[in-house]
């Protein structure tokens, strides 16, 4: 999401959070504009549901607002903390889902019209989203954070409480799973029929 340039564009998340805690409404607006799309994108990709992604995003952000006055500068990055909270909230939701009957027409399927109706890149993005939904939870988290959010392996390790080696292993297994899922659609996705 593009954000209009203003005096807060260059400020760090931490600096803005300190200003938020001091009651600065400009900082509040800047943080919402900056963090909400990030949190929402991660939640949406992990949960595959627009409505659940909104609930998780709201929950994660409220936790940040509440902790803002007590935030200890220099101890953790705001984004790392927020990703961790978001991933944990998504994990809770996914675990609750396991106790419920599976819905074959889940939200992610509803949002993905037939491949032939979409442009090629959009088809690929939608196919990837469906394939992601089929991955085991941990693999999906790592692949989303690494390849879609662009975080480094050490950052992901810190967020998920894993070693860097475990992150690398999960990423490799996740990518193998995605390739297996997507291989069946190679022709439809414009890779040729071979």
């Amino acid at each position, binding site marked *: *999401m593009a954000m209009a340039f203003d005096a807060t564009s260059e400020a760090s998340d931490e600096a803005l959070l300190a200003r*938020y*805690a*001091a*009651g*600065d*409404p400009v900082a*509040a*607006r800047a*943080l*919402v*504009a900056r963090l*909400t*799309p990030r949190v*929402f*994108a991660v939640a*949406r*990709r992990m949960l595959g549901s*627009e409505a659940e*992604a*909104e609930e998780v*995003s*709201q929950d994660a*952000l*409220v936790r940040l*607002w*509440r902790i*803002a*006055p007590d935030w200890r500068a220099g101890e953790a990055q705001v984004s790392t903390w927020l990703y961790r909270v978001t991933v944990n909230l998504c994990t809770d939701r996914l675990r609750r889902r396991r106790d419920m009957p599976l819905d074959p027409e889940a939200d992610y399927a509803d949002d993905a019209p037939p491949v032939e109706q979409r442009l090629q*890149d*959009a088809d*690929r*993005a939608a*196919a*990837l*989203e469906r394939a992601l939904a089929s991955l085991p939870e941990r693999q999906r988290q790592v692949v989303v954070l690494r*390849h*879609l959010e*662009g975080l480094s392996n050490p950052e992901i390790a810190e967020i998920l409480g894993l070693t860097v080696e475990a992150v690398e292993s999960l990423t490799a297994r996740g*990518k193998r799973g*995605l*390739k297996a899922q*997507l*291989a*069946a659609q*190679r022709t439809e996705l414009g*890779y040729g029929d*071979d």
Partner: protein
Amino acid sequence: MTDMDDAELDRHFAAARARPPEPDAAFMARAMAEARAHQPPAVAARPPLPSGRGAAVLAWLAGVAMPGGLIAATLVGVLIGVSSGDLVSDQAAVLMETDLGMELVYRFPAIGGFFEEI
């Protein structure tokens, strides 16, 4: 069926990165309202300080006269408290030789006379 290679998978990642799921305007508005609802109130700004001669007088009163007065009152209280003892003169002499005693006499010359009397 041919396996998918890394380059092809990367094209999927690139396509997905180019189309991140975005929150709609209504949700952004709710998120903003929630942020403001939880935000602590702004810290009240101090009233502006006077400038010119008024400021100089206030600075003198705050920085010089008030602490000096407090020090003098404290010191006089201590001296009165110990004045019934036999060592008053010695203590007064010791006090006069300290930085505090000299500062006190400098700011309040009358106290110097008090020290000399005891």
